[in-house]
């Protein structure tokens, strides 16, 4: 997991290298994207909230990310979400309760605060206190520096229902400050790889800096959206996420992306919230309630 070479890598240079790699991979994915968009228009995937075992509610923080072109974060050609052109897809988008861009903007602002001021006053717990409450392995928690834990704002422990195995390739959707990615990196070991994806620049800076300081070489953090993950199709053995999907208004698109990046037989394991009582329509349309 560690390498002497990592000790001489500058965080900003590492970030620039990640961005260059991202652009190269996005360019490579253009033909695949065209096929995906065409196929989704011909055969619209069957999604339905009515089949959800529980209703995923939106009361906590976010991790679906804004388009890279927002606020000067243009990293080159970006993948658009793989929305089809069918009437079903257009209707699904019209049925969203809030404006996606506005929600992403608020979510990014909220998580920017959590990144730079993790001890601030939030409606949720953060850091080590939260990790202990959610039942994370105490020994693994103790081995991580404060900077890797303090901005953690997850909902549950994504590793409780299935343990990661050495050598697995993991995608962390909405990796935030990198806490779950670092836990995963230790579990999959030197032969495994973890790609964290997040939309908030401050969170990415933090997670990359911590990785550099810890000399971790099997984890990489990329800028991207949950609805358009910068990961090639069927790359991942496992997709993890924590407290992110509930903040994404188009959950169908998120799960479609998770399905795309998973290899056949791969697992998705995530922590999120669900409500036991129906939420009034007015509350769903109140964007302030999405971000707390």
């Amino acid at each position, binding site marked *: 997991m560690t390498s002497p070479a990592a000790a001489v890598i500058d965080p900003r240079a590492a970030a620039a290298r990640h961005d260059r790699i991202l652009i190269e991979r996005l360019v490579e994915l253009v033909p695949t994207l065209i096929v995906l968009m065409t196929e989704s228009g011909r055969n619209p995937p069957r999604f339905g909230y009515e089949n959800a075992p*529980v209703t995923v509610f939106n009361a*906590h923080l976010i991790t679906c990310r804004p388009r890279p072109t927002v606020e000067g974060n243009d990293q080159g050609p970006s993948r658009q979400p793989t929305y089809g052109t069918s009437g079903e897809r257009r209707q699904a988008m019209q049925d969203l309760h809030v404006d996606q861009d506005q929600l992403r903007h608020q979510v990014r602002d909220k998580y920017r605060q959590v990144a730079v001021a993790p001890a601030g006053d939030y*409606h949720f717990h953060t850091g080590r206190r939260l990790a202990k409450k959610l039942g994370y392995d105490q020994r693994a928690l103790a081995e991580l520096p404060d900077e890797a834990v303090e901005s953690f704002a997850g909902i549950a422990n994504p590793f409780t*229902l299935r343990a990661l195995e050495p050598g697995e390739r993991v995608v962390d959707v909405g990796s935030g400050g990198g806490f779950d990615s670092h836990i995963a990196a230790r579990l999959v070991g030197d032969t495994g790889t973890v790609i964290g994806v997040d939309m908030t620049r401050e969170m990415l800076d933090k997670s990359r800096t911590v990785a550099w300081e810890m000399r971790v070489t099997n984890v990489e953090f990329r800028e991207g959206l949950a609805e358009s993950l910068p990961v090639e199709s069927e790359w991942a053995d496992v997709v993890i996420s924590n407290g992110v999907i509930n903040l994404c208004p188009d*959950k169908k698109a998120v799960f479609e992306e998770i*399905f795309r990046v998973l290899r056949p037989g791969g*697992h*998705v394991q995530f922590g999120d919230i669900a409500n036991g009582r129906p939420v009034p329509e007015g509350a769903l349309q109140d964007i302030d*309630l999405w971000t707390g």
Partner: protein
Amino acid sequence: MLEATGLENVAISDPVDTFGGASGEEKARAYDVHGYAFLARKPR
């Protein structure tokens, strides 16, 4: 929604009182909001 996406073998953990003791606890209680761990598999 997981099954509708094509995933299978969906499992859900027991609820976790994620917001207990936090300032958001009152809102969470109002709608019976808890944290859960979810697990599902993409078919082979």
